[in-house]
């Protein structure tokens, strides 16, 4: 473990351990099966983290495109009859008792591919290189939207923005992209590409409690759970909203409501604090490394994590739209757990290998553009 960042790994481990407890609390009326399986996912994640933390970064950079094509192939394959459908999305490979979600795997893979692409520029990203990054993004986003899995698509977009921004894309290019992106979102919402339930879920947070038994039911119950927790919470396994199954999807997307109700503001702030600590250590690795590939990897991972935490925790409190995005480390689920651990392992690898210089990997122009 020499040279490893103990705060980075420690915060990740603490969050994962807490996740097991929370999943256990949310599914207690069904026994311990979910908690036991979550322990297995954490173990699998540990293996993935060890691998990505120890692998040679340079070798990884050279093989980033291969990994990317492999991920893309899996995403295409899941749309074929090999893929299984759950909750209206064809997003899974069913492997006996296990289920693999290639979109989750694609998240760290896309980070690496974009980082490798950005690192080749050896300077600020010009329009052509930016376009290249967008092409890299376009493939997986398109395939993920076909499942359809809007949440993961949004994560892929956000981590791309993180990488290209840190790689030194021009401000006006990013602004232009922002405008086009905004128009695209409105277009998607209006043009009927999404099923009505998706539009309702996305816009539900704008008219909360208008429809107490329908779309807003999840949100209202989530807010009741968190709000009733108060300062210290109802106590682990004692929250009535949690015990009596008032919050739907509580062990997966709405796992933060367990923290809110049973552990209160103290627990909620601790969880946010651990994520904050994790974010800081990833940012610090990016800042200190001399390797542009490593720095951009960290930027992408940071953007991915911050977006997921903000979106997920925000939706349980009614300040962001409801989308099917898991809370990293805490939500129940194997693919997400393994992918998150792999991503954090990558950041840990960067932190371990390049601890000396500050901002050395990024060209002067990039630093100008971003400071």
């Amino acid at each position, binding site marked *: 473990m020499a040279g490893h960042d103990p705060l980075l790994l420690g915060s990740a481990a603490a969050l994962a351990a807490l996740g097991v407890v929370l999943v256990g609390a949310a599914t207690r009326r069904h026994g311990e099966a979910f908690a036991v399986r979550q322990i297995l996912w954490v173990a699998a994640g540990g293996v993935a983290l060890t691998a990505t933390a120890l692998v040679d970064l340079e070798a990884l950079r050279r093989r980033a495109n291969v990994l990317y094509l492999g991920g893309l192939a899996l995403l295409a394959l899941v749309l074929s009859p090999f893929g299984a459908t759950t909750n209206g999305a064809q997003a899974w490979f069913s492997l006996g008792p296990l289920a693999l979600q290639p979109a989750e795997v694609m998240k760290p893979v896309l980070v690496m591919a974009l980082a490798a692409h950005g690192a080749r520029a050896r300077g600020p990203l010009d329009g052509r290189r930016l376009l290249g990054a967008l092409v890299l993004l376009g493939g997986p986003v398109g395939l993920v939207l076909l499942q359809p899995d809007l949440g993961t698509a949004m994560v892929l977009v956000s981590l791309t923005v*993180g990488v290209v921004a840190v790689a030194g894309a021009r401000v006006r290019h990013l602004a232009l992209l922002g405008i086009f992106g905004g128009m695209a979102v409105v277009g998607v919402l209006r043009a009927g590409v999404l099923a009505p339930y998706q539009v309702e879920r996305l816009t539900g947070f704008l008219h909360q409690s208008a429809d107490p038994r329908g779309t807003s039911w999840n949100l209202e119950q989530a807010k009741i759970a968190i*709000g*009733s927790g108060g*300062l210290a919470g109802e106590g682990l396994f004692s929250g009535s909203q949690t015990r009596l199954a008032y919050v739907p999807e509580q062990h997966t997307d709405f796992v933060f409501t367990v923290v*809110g109700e049973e552990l209160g503001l103290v627990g909620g702030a601790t969880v*946010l604090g651990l994520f904050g600590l994790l*974010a800081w250590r990833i940012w610090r690795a990016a800042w200190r490394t001399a390797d542009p590939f490593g720095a951009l990897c960290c930027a992408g991972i940071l953007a991915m994590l911050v977006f997921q935490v903000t979106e997920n*925790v925000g939706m349980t409190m009614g300040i962001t739209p409801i989308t099917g995005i898991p809370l990293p480390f805490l939500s129940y689920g194997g693919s997400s757990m393994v992918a998150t651990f792999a991503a954090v392992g990558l950041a840990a690898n960067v932190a371990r290998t390049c601890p000396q210089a500050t901002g050395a990997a990024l060209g002067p122009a990039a630093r100008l553009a971003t400071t």
Partner: protein
Amino acid sequence: MVVVAVLTVCCFVTLLTRLVHLQVAERPAYAARAEANRLRIVALEAPRGRILDRSERVLADSAPAWRIRLDRRVPRAERAALLERLGPVLGVAAADLRARVDDPSADRVLPATLLDDAPDDVVLALRERAAEFDGVEIDSHPIRRYPRGRLAAHVLGTLGAAPGPGRAGRAGTSGVEAAFDQLLAGRAGEDRIEVDSAGRPAGRTGGRSAVPGRDVRLTIDLDVQAVAEQALADGMALARSGVPGTDASPAPGGAVAAIDLRDGSVLALASAPTFDPATLAGRIRADTWAALHDPAAHAPLTNRALQGLYAPGSTFKPVTALAALGAGLVTPATVVDDRGTYLLGGRLLQNAQGRAHGKVDLARALAVSSDVYFYGLGDRLARVPPGTTADGPIQAIAGRLGFGRPTGIDLGPEAAGRVPGPASRWAAHERRPADVPDGRWYPGDNVNLAIGQGDLLVTPLQLAMAYGTLATGLVPPAPHVLADGRGPMGPRPGAGLDAAARQAVLAGLAGAVGSKEGTAAAAFAGFPLDRVPVEGKTGTAQVNGRGDTSLFVAVAPANNPQFVVVAVVEEAGFGSVVAAPIVRKVLEVLTGGRP
């Protein structure tokens, strides 16, 4: 990179701010909503207190009954078939059972009540075939029982569904059940049940048990009540069979009241036709309800002793006599020659059956019930100028005796009756000119009033209390059926009746019972009047288009008034034939005057 850091910090600060807002500022509201989610409060029925007679013999009791309910978790698809199978076992049509399950006023979570007083054999059948009736629950809950059957049904009163969602069980809707509901009801308990998001009970989290209602002891004497009801039934049967001197009459209803004048306690209160309170204790069957409200049943739920309005006929003559004595028109010794007719403004009025009584003074006029004597008094009283009141002397005396207003008995509702007079006639004309085209009060109206006819209406209870006032010369305490709950209250002075006039009238009432020619002499033949002297008055009141009302009121013992008893039987002919024997039987049990 710095921008990334700033954005990240912004994200976390936003989340934390929102978290603090939800969990600190808005916590009370969300905690309350979580509690409302979690808990269903189920009311537990409190057993009603018993209703006892004055010697604490039980008239109404609360006993556990089998209740059969359907678990609402039985899926809709299975429910229909289940109810079809249940119908024959419970003896209720499946359609009725479906209606009970779908009753919109019932709780959404609690099991639906199918039967609330199931017989043992039904419960046994359900238990034996439990496998066929998955989802059917059998439990026990308190229900009213009446160990004496129909006895005092009108006094006890009826129960209805408890008002409001908070109260379990049933509440009084009439009689003692309604008047003393506060005492009898007790306090419902509650079970606090935790339910999950699908509404399934997940456990009991506490609550409080029900507090049983308090017993209520009545002034009613079960033995006197039984005699009164039996005597009333016998009298009605007699009237129906037709006796010599009367036409056969249908006698659809009647009432008896017996009151202890010393404290106003009601010893017996009977009304006919009556009903079986047990049929109204639980869920009321539609055919039972329809039968009780059939016009041919003559309103069995009405307590005629308090709510029946009758022309008092000759029982009103003492009022006229007091008014005439007070106005100085006659003295007790004034003699009138009764030839059987009286000429009023060209109209010839007759005695009942056209009989001529010859020379009558006041006492004899009352004893033989000479109409001619009282026609004259009514005619002459019409010409007496009104004193301080707008109405005449008869109305003034009637008011002092309590006619025209409720007696204030602690049972409701009670009718007020009506004493017509010049003032009320004119007021009625002003109010409803179409119904009362002529607002004037004629001597003929006064003559009618003098013999207790016309627009005059009294309740049996009013009549009894008026005779109590007349006999004692004191204002009797308001009649009441609740034995405990108020201090001792005796009669008080202030009735405003002239003692000499009263004695003159009472002599006439004694003669009606005790003299050979008295109208009630036959009815009291063999009664130990020497030991228990009785003062009474018969009445045979004419009713438009219907048979005569038979009335009798009596006070005993005359030398020390204790009891007043009244009997009224509708469409039953002479008071002397039907009503007087009823009163005699009640007086026998009250005074030990059995021959």
